[in-house]
C-alpha cells in the first residue's frame, strides 16, 4: 500500500508536468492547427532562466517571474518570425519548423547557459511528508497545487472572458471566427504566449525535483505530445487527463514492471488506446466528409 501510494504520487507529479506541456500543445493546436514541438523548450527555458538569474543574485521569486516573461517573449518571437511567415504551409512543413525552433533554442541554451544539470531550492524544504507509509516530497505537492491553479485560472479565463470566447471560437472554426471579426492571427500569437508561460511555470515548479539542463525539452515535448493525443488532440480536459495518465503509467510500470522499460510500456498503452479509440480518450469521433 505504501509502495502504491509512493508510485501514485510520483506518477501524479510527473503527470502534472506532462499535463501542462500537453495543455500548451492543445492551446496552440486549437488556435492554429499547428503541433508546436518547441513546447518542451519553454519548460527548459523556465527552469534554466530561473536557475541562472538566481545564480546571478536575483531573488528567486523575481527570477521566476522574469523567466516566465522571457519564455513568453520567446514564444511571441517564435510566432512572429517562424510561424506567421509560413502561414498556409502543410502539416509536415510546420512540424519541421517547430522542430527547427526547438533545436535552435536548445543550441542557444547550451551557449547562453551551459551543459550541466541544475536544480532549484525546494519551496518547503526536502523533508518528506509521511502519508500512509509513503514518503512524499513537499515540492511534489507544490507541483500538483501549481498545476491545478494554472488549469483553473486558464479555465476561468477562457470560460469567463470575451477574449477567452474568441479563443474558443477560433478553435471551433477559424474561418467563421475571422468572418465575425476575430483577429485569428492575434489569437495564434496569444496562444503561443500562454503556452510559453504555462511551459515555463511547469519548468520552474518541477526543477527542484527532476533537475533541468539545456536538453530536457525534447523528451518532455514527446511525452506532452503523446499525452495530448492520448487525451484527444484539441481537448484541454483531454490534455490534463492524458498527461496525468501518462505520468501514472510510467510511475507504475517503473515500479511494478521495469524502470528501464517504463517508456516502452507507456507508449504501448498509448498505441493500444489509439487502436481502440482512434480519437483519443476524450476526443469526439470525426466523420470524414467526402
Amino acid at each position, binding site marked *: 500500500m505504501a509502495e502504491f501510494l509512493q508510485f501514485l504520487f510520483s506518477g501524479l507529479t510527473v503527470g502534472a508536468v506532462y499535463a501542462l506541456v500537453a495543455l500548451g500543445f492543445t492551446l496552440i493546436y486549437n488556435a492554429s492547427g499547428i503541433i508546436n514541438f518547441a513546447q518542451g523548450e519553454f519548460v527548459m527555458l523556465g527552469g534554466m532562466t530561473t536557475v541562472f538569474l538566481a545564480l546571478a543574485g536575483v531573488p528567486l521569486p523575481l527570477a521566476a517571474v522574469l523567466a516566465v516573461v522571457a519564455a513568453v517573449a520567446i514564444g511571441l518571437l517564435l510566432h512572429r518570425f517562424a510561424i506567421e511567415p509560413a502561414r498556409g504551409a502543410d502539416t509536415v512543413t510546420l512540424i519541421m519548423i517547430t522542430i527547427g525552433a526547438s533545436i535552435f533554442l536548445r543550441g542557444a541554451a547550451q551557449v547562453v547557459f551551459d551543459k550541466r544539470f541544475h536544480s532549484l531550492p525546494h519551496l518547503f524544504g526536502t523533508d518528506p511528508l509521511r502519508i500512509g507509509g509513503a514518503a512524499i516530497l513537499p515540492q511534489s505537492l507544490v507541483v500538483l497545487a501549481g498545476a491545478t491553479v494554472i488549469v483553473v485560472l486558464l479555465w476561468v479565463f477562457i470560460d469567463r472572458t470575451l477574449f477567452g470566447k474568441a479563443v474558443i471560437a477560433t478553435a471551433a472554426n477559424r474561418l467563421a471566427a475571422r468572418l465575425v471579426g476575430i483577429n485569428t492571427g492575434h489569437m495564434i500569437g496569444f496562444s503561443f504566449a500562454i503556452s510559453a508561460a504555462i511551459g515555463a511555470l511547469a519548468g520552474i515548479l518541477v526543477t527542484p525535483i527532476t533537475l533541468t539542463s539545456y536538453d530536457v525539452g525534447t523528451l518532455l515535448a514527446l511525452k506532452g505530445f503523446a499525452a495530448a493525443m492520448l487525451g484527444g488532440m484539441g481537448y484541454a480536459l483531454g490534455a490534463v487527463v492524458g498527461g496525468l495518465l501518462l505520468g501514472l503509467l510510467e510511475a507504475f510500470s517503473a515500479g511494478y514492471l521495469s524502470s528501464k522499460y517504463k517508456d516502452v510500456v507507456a507508449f504501448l498503452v498509448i498505441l493500444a488506446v489509439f487502436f481502440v479509440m482512434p480519437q483519443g480518450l476524450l476526443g469526439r469521433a470525426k*466523420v*470524414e*466528409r*467526402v
Partner: protein
Amino acid sequence: MSILQVERLSIAFGGVRAIDDVTLSVPRACVFSIIGPNGAGKTTLFNLISGVYRPAAGRVLLDGVDVSGFAPDRLARRGLSRTFQNLQIFFRLSALENVMVGRNRHETTNVIQDLLHLPAVRRQNRATREAALAALARVGLEADADKPAGSLPYGAMKRLEIARALASEPQVLLLDEPAAGCNPVETGELDEIIRAIVREGVTIVLVEHDMRLVMNISDRIHVLANGRTLTEGSAAEVRSNPAVVEAYLGTHNARGRAVA
C-alpha cells in the same frame, strides 16, 4: 433480378438520423436517380452503399450478395465504384495517370516486380495506359491526357472521375452530382456519356440537382427527404407528385424551382 438492393438502411450522426430506414432496388443496366432537397441524405446514402460509412442498421446487396459493412476497396473489386460530390482528384498525377489508377484492381504485377521493372511491368504499364486512354476517350478527355489533373477545369475534373471509375470496369457506378459546374452544352455531353455507359450494361446510380438531366435520363427516380424515402417512380410519376414539389419548395432551396 436487381443488381443493387438496399434494405432498411439507417445511420445517425450525433442523434440526427441522416438515413432512416431507406429501401430501394436498382434494376440492371438502367439509370436510377436519387433526388431530394439539400440535406436529404443523398450523399450519405452513397457513402453507405460504397462502404465509406458503415450502416447502423440494414443491408446492402450487390448482385444478390450481402455486402453490408464491406470496405470500399472490397466493394470496388466486386464491381461497385463511384465519383464524389466534392472532387477527389489525384492532384499529383496527370489526367491519364488518374485513370490508370482506376485500372489498379486489374493490374497483376507485385511490388517486387514493380521495383525491378521487369518486362511484365512494362507490358502491364502499356496495357494499363491503353485501357486508360480508352476510358478518357469515353468522356471526351483524350486530348487532356498528359495535363496535370489539377489544371483541368471543374467540369472536366468531374468527367475525369467518371473515366477513372469506368477504367475499374464497374458493374454499378454511383455518380454524385456529375453535372455540377457544367454549362448546358457540357450537360448535354454528359447525358450522352451516361447513356453510352448504360448501353454497355453498366448500372448507373445518379445523384443530381440538374432536374432536366435527371428527368431526361432516368429510368427510375427515388426521392429522399430528411433521410427518409418520400416516393419512387418514373420521371413522369415523380414530377406530378405534389409531395415532391412541396418537399423542394418547403426547404427554401433555390434549385427546387427546376422541379416545378
